């Protein structure tokens, strides 16, 4: 078997396609690294600035009074950029980098409610008249270019030998057919891996030499997993090439079939299918949302109208006011959350359908391990929700510590107006959790492995039964 593998590798190393692949992959990976070096520091700086602004805002309110803190809330919470952004861009331009925890409703200074969580959506950049571009991340290089290269290495792996007549010679030796198949597969795998590995190493070398970008141990671990996934994805296409190459008599026909399969599977299917599912499961329309919003708010307002909007400031009014503010914010929050979860459901629905295309699986996996993309966004949203609870608890606890306070949160006369130490206020820190990644992505990894296994056994069956 090793003989076959070795011969295959030697054959490939001398070929034109090997040289062209090396040049292409190197050029792409180096561009990726350079673009990352150019853009990532700006991203980090922007995030750091935003976090400083957030902390300053929090501190200034805390120094003022607990009441203001309870009213204004923590403000904008920001998503931490991933150091592995170059692996998968993850639709950054469609996902908002912030969740807003502030913005109390209000009519006048005394009549201001309390903060709530809301999820701003990114408005598309309407000013941009430059042509659209796919981000040149690893997801693109692996998903599109590497898969194409894998097909170009395997389309003639069996049919070529059959055309030249060497297959007959080889099978005349005492080698079982499955050994031939596996030997050839390993040969192709190693020959494609060499230029890929080379370009990845160059890419990482360039990125790690930059002094302002640190990749810690965890990031390297993630990169290792990403590399493993790419090899798995690549072997999927190698096996596909193997299968078609055994079934088809001429290598030219084999290539045409493979290219058409590739174009459909990789370029068209993901987007077309996703757009179709978008039509079948519509999310809540804006109009509907605002209708429901108005209706529920009207109900709430009617319930509290005569108790809240009075000039008196006895305990009864203040209690009603505090209750009203809390309910108002809770209602807003619930509506926002409902809408968000509907949008997420629709998106997930679309994503689960396009899992039939391996390129979506691999890009999704890459996003998960690079800490970008949709799942990461949801993690960020969860983090902010957890923090919101923590912040609310802190306000109640801090208020309880003040003996003069009436413990009516959200009303000036009803709660502590003493300043609190900025240090004691809980701070939001966005974190990334690898365990959770594994849970969400294990299924997809399995799916990818399953694809490879099924195709591999199909290729084996086809090769065993084929006449030479």
């Amino acid at each position, binding site marked *: 078997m090793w003989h076959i593998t070795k011969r295959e590798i030697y054959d490939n190393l001398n*070929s034109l396609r090997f040289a062209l692949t090396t040049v292409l992959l190197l050029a792409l990976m180096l561009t990726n690294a350079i*673009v990352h070096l150019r853009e990532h520091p700006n991203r980090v700086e922007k995030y750091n600035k935003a976090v400083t602004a957030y902390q300053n805002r929090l501190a200034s309110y805390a120094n003022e009074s607990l009441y203001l803190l309870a009213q204004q809330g923590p403000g904008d919470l920001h998503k931490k950029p991933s150091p592995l952004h170059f692996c998968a861009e993850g639709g950054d331009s469609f996902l908002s980098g912030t969740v807003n925890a502030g913005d109390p409703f209000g009519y006048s200074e005394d009549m201001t409610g309390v903060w709530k969580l809301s999820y701003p959506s990114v408005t598309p950049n309407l000013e*941009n008249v430059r042509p659209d571009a796919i981000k040149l991340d690893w997801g693109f290089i692996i998903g599109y270019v590497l898969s*194409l290269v894998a097909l170009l290495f395997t389309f003639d792996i069996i049919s070529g030998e059959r055309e030249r007549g060497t297959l007959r010679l080889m099978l005349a030796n005492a080698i079982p057919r499955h050994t031939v198949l596996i030997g050839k597969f390993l040969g192709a795998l190693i020959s494609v891996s060499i230029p890929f590995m080379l370009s990845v190493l160059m890419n990482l070398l360039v990125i790690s030499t930059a002094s302002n970008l640190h990749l810690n141990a965890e990031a390297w671990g993630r990169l290792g997993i990403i590399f493993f996934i790419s090899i798995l994805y690549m072997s999927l296409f190698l096996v596909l090439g193997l299968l078609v190459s055994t079934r088809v008599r001429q290598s030219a026909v084999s*290539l045409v079939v493979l290219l058409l399969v590739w174009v459909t599977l990789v370029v068209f299917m993901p987007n077309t299918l996703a757009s179709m599912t*978008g039509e079948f499961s519509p999310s809540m329309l804006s109009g509907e949302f605002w209708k429901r919003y108005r209706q529920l708010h009207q109900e709430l307002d009617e319930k509290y109208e005569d108790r809240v909007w009075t000039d008196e400031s006895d305990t009864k009014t203040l209690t009603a006011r505090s209750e009203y503010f809390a309910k108002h914010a809770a209602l807003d929050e619930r509506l926002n959350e409902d809408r968000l979860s509907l949008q*997420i459901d629709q998106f997930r629905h679309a994503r689960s359908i*396009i899992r039939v295309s391996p390129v979506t699986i691999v890009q999704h996996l890459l996003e998960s391990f690079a800490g970008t993309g949709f799942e990461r966004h949801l993690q960020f949203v969860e983090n902010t929700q957890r923090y919101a609870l923590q912040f609310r608890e802190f306000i109640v606890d801090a208020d309880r510590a003040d003996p003069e306070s009436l413990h009516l949160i959200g009303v000036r006369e009803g709660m502590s107006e003493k300043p609190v130490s900025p240090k004691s206020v809980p701070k939001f820190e966005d974190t990334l959790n690898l365990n959770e990644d594994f849970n969400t992505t294990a299924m997809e990894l399995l799916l990818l492995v399953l694809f490879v296994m099924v195709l591999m056994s199909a290729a084996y069956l086809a090769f065993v039964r084929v006449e030479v």
Partner: protein
Amino acid sequence: MLKTLIRRELLDNLMTSRFAAVLLITLLLVVANTVVLIQDYEQRLESYNGAIRTHYQELRAAKTYSTMAILVDRAPNPLSIFNVGLDKRLGNLVGIYHGFMPTLWNAQMHGTDNPFIAFFSLIDIVFIFEVVLSLMGLIFAYDAIAGERERGTLRLVLAQPIGRGQILLAKYISAMACLLVPLILSLLFALLLLMRSIPLSTADFLRIAGIVFASFAYLSLFYLIGLLISVATRRTGTALMLAMFVWGFLILVYPNLIRATVNPGGDIQARTKIVEDQIQQILDEYERERQKFLEKEGIAGETSEFSKALGLHSYAFVDPVTLMSYVENISLISEIHPEFEQYAPSAKRYYNFVEPLSARTVEKTWHIRKQALDEIYVRQAETDRVLLKFSPVGVYDAATQAWAGTDLEGVRDFFSTARRYRKAVIDYLYAKEAFSSREWFIADKGAVDWSTLPQFTFERSTVGTNAKRALPDMFLLLICNLALFMLIVLIFMKSEV
């Protein structure tokens, strides 16, 4: 002899499995995507119609001239199904106001319902052609000469009394005839689907014909690239490899590579700052004149009785990013208090002075702004497009966008119409003597009658204009075709068999 050659080539090409596979895939992709695209178009049209109704009602609800809210909407382009271009990406809603100049940089979008769905891009018909037609062209061409050379039949053919150029011509004609089948068939299917749900005018059909012609030139260009490779190489295996890498590079890698590497920029901020300052000066001058008038009338000061009586808010600012200057004087009361009635004549004089002044000021800033916007934003986009044109995909994309009217020019047409409409609205206000009327700021003597306001209509540019915009790129495609063909003939003449 040429006829025999063509017939033989045609049969050779038509009876292959690659032809069947290509036909099937193209039809499948085009039909499936057209269905999705039509749905998307209809959704956008619905959203547009809804927006028009809402904006109509909003305008009727304005009781005074100064609170008028004229919003105009851009209808989705039905030809965006062929090439969506910038049609979906740029704003389709802009306000018309005399103290503001509507441009594409200030436009907004009708609400989109799920922002996450933007993750998946819609694939338009031209994109399918970009990918599939080019692949087809190369697959049909790579073994045209190299294959015959390998099999030894080339020698036989050349032994006949026939020119080498003629052989190439025969190959070209027959292959193009074959390749046209999937192109035309899939377009026919798409058109049938289209006509069932979207009414198309004669002009639209002419534009579609332009798109078909561009597709034809694009297809032929890739066939010729394949033929060049085939003529220049000895073995089909090498030819195929080269062709595939050329395809991957031109279609997949180059367009994305060039857009990733071109740095957006230079020093935009410094440039905008200069222009912002210039505009700010004009606005300052406006403010000085306004103050002078107020002093002359003896009603100066933000907190004066006059301002309070009318609920007057006066703004003049410039936006540092889009350089938009906005000048507004707005009266925020619905009825005038009897004790302030004495200010009504001054108010009439004030508005009669200040509103034409703000319109003039904004027009003055527009001269500077237009130039700056072109220099800062448009020129960069143009550079990007020129760089993209080093790949045939870029040329083809630009040409079909121009035909469909979804290119930058096509979208900007809408905004220049909006600017003309702004002028018409101002003229209408002058004709009605609205600036000096009581209805300008107060509605106590009955609301404004909006029924005579000129209507906004936007016609897409004529086919002639589309053709003119598409012409350079069409020309480029044809020239490339011709040059390549000449090159192939030259190489083939010189090559040994």
